[in-house]
């Protein structure tokens, strides 16, 4: 059936003076927007299927292509917006749930942008990170409240044995993105970059391809509700384990990797038959309560002989502080909180756009809550969901995060253009696809380099910002909300963030 009420999202414009009919665009568009007419000797474009991914425009050697938002305007209506109307058309035609990729794209306030950072002036010196050491090393994991010493043969010896900690050279890790939701090359690049940069990549719930096990010491492997790819070797191959309870993009919702993406390699990695849908249930069916979670945490610790920190990842929902506290008390060494901007390969649009809370509030609430309860040392906090730049990282750490996860930012570093069509499997950038035509487009070496560059650049910026504050060790920034001020926030928001207003 022709989708006759749905107009194109974009208009592809081709400058005839610049187009050399080289057909690069034709060859690069997986949506068949461009076509070469050999009779005419000309390339034509049909915008109907254009997703605005810019692949053609980016590769066009003469910059002949530009992509605009469709000009078709509805009568202005603050309530019945263009998007709302389109969704209705779509649903009227398909009768299905609206799907979307990536994170919440709605016009909610971005609280990072309403927080500003401090810098030293006169009364104390800023520190030049190019001349002085500037330390970003971060340890994630459960820490005792105190270090105890014993006297041995007249000298002091350490009596406290620290539990296993993850050592991060930069407090930025790659979020859970499964092999399956993203391509082999993308997964490989994330793992390699994590190793090269001294941080961690998260396997997501897709298991761990044999090729990636060599990067295991820089990987966090997920145990999600589908338990894909989980066996004892999987657990032991990793640096840390993460029980995925929820995801910011779709709290309360499971996952679904369609069977057509489950090729031989993915089937082997996920330990499911080739061609079958990989369905992750909404809840873990062995976790219906916090005490069930504790059992799983300790089952995992037993399985790995207490050598790996166990993280619990939860979506930022209304009661996140209490939930996080429960996780810590259940034995989580790390609590990862995924805010409502967190990305996904596919989520029901309504869920993605309407469920969950901003990470800024969730993070502030969790950190404060754990401190109030005197258990902040017992677990590290990882903030995720919408971290876009190094300043966001600094703000997150100042709010109380030990480290952050980046997903979308990492994908963008690899080339993602946020067209939000991950769920179609036709990612023109070779990231969220298993189509061999497309996966080749991501050179893992290039992607690795770009990711490492990103972390390097952010490290330099974080160091500059810290130096400006007169801080030379990241632990002095962590939870240091004195270095944050709010701009344009209500008293209540300030109170929840426990941040003073600018000028205070």
């Amino acid at each position, binding site marked *: 059936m022709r989708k006759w009420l749905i107009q194109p999202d974009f208009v592809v414009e081709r400058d005839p*003076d*610049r187009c*050399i*009919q*080289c*057909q*690069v665009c034709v*060859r*690069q568009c997986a949506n068949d927007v461009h076509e070469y007419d050999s009779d005419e000797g000309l390339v034509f474009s049909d915008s109907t299927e254009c997703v605005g991914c810019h692949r053609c425009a*980016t*590769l066009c*050697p*003469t910059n002949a292509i530009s992509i605009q938002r469709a000009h078709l305007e509805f009568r202005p209506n603050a309530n019945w917006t263009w998007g709302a109307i389109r969704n209705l058309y779509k649903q009227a035609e398909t009768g299905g749930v609206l799907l979307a990729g990536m994170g919440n794209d709605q016009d909610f306030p971005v609280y990072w942008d309403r927080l500003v950072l401090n810098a030293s002036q006169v009364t104390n010196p800023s520190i030049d990170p190019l001349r002085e050491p500037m330390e970003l090393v971060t340890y994630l994991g459960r820490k005792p409240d105190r270090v105890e010493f014993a006297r041995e043969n007249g000298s002091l010896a350490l009596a406290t044995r620290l539990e296993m900690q993850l050592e991060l050279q930069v407090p930025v890790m790659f979020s859970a993105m499964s092999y399956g939701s993203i391509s082999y090359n993308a997964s490989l690049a994330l793992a390699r970059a994590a190793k090269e940069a001294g941080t961690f990549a998260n396997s997501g719930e897709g298991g761990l391809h044999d090729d990636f096990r060599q990067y295991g010491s820089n990987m966090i492997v997920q145990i999600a509700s589908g338990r894909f790819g989980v066996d004892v070797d999987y657990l032991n191959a990793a640096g840390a384990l993460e029980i995925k309870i929820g995801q910011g993009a779709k709290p309360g919702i499971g996952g679904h990797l369609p069977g057509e993406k489950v090729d031989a390699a993915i089937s082997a990695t996920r330990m499911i038959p080739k061609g079958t849908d990989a369905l992750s249930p909404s809840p873990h069916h062995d976790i219906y309560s916090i005490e069930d979670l504790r059992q799983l945490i300790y089952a995992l610790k037993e399985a790995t002989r207490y050598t790996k920190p166990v993280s619990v990842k939860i979506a930022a929902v209304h009661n996140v502080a209490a939930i996080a506290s429960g996780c810590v008390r259940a034995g989580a060494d790390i609590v990862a909180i995924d805010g409502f901007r967190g990305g996904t390969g596919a989520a029901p649009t309504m869920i993605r756009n309407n469920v969950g809370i901003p990470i800024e509030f969730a993070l502030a609430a969790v950190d404060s809550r754990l401190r109030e309860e005197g258990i902040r040392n017992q677990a590290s906090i990882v903030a995720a969901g919408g971290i876009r730049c190094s300043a966001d990282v600094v703000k997150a750490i100042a709010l109380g995060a030990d480290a952050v996860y980046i997903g979308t930012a990492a994908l963008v570093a690899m080339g993602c253009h946020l067209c939000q069509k991950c769920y179609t499997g036709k990612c023109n950038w*070779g990231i969220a696809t298993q*189509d*061999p*035509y497309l996966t*080749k*487009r*991501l*050179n893992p*070496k*290039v992607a690795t380099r770009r990711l490492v560059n990103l972390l390097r650049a952010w490290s330099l910026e974080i160091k500059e910002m810290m130096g400006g504050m007169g801080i030379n060790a990241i632990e002095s920034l962590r939870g240091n909300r004195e270095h944050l001020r709010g701009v344009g926030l209500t008293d209540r928001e300030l109170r929840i963030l426990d941040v003073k207003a600018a000028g205070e």
Partner: protein
Amino acid sequence: MKRVVAREELCIGCRLCEIHCLVQHSKSKKIIKAFRDERDSIVPGVHVEEKGYVSFALQCRHCNDARCIDACMTGAMRRDPETGAVLCDEDKCVGCWMCIMVCPVGAIQMGADKHVASKCDLCIGAETPACVANCPNEAIVCEETDE
């Protein structure tokens, strides 16, 4: 010497290498002009082969044991002593096609005018061959070899 290495697992079949090869060997070296004026008079030295999702850019391998040099009856095909590149002197070539006959990778073509052989010259003089510099996926890379 410099070698151009093509990685088929990374070639995305965009053919930008061919396009930029043509531009590099055009008079103006300006892409729009080159395509307008010289598209039919230049045969790119690099050629993308495609079959299904496999593709790769192929150009002269500048073989150590270059059969085209053996076969060249005029001495037009020669190895540049400085770069080690196998070059075809178009002033000497008479278009006997011996080189085409013996090139095991099929990397030598008849020139656009069908009078002389045309092949990759590693963009002698340029810092990086155009195909390498313009491959968006680094599927064509330049490597230095000991030889």
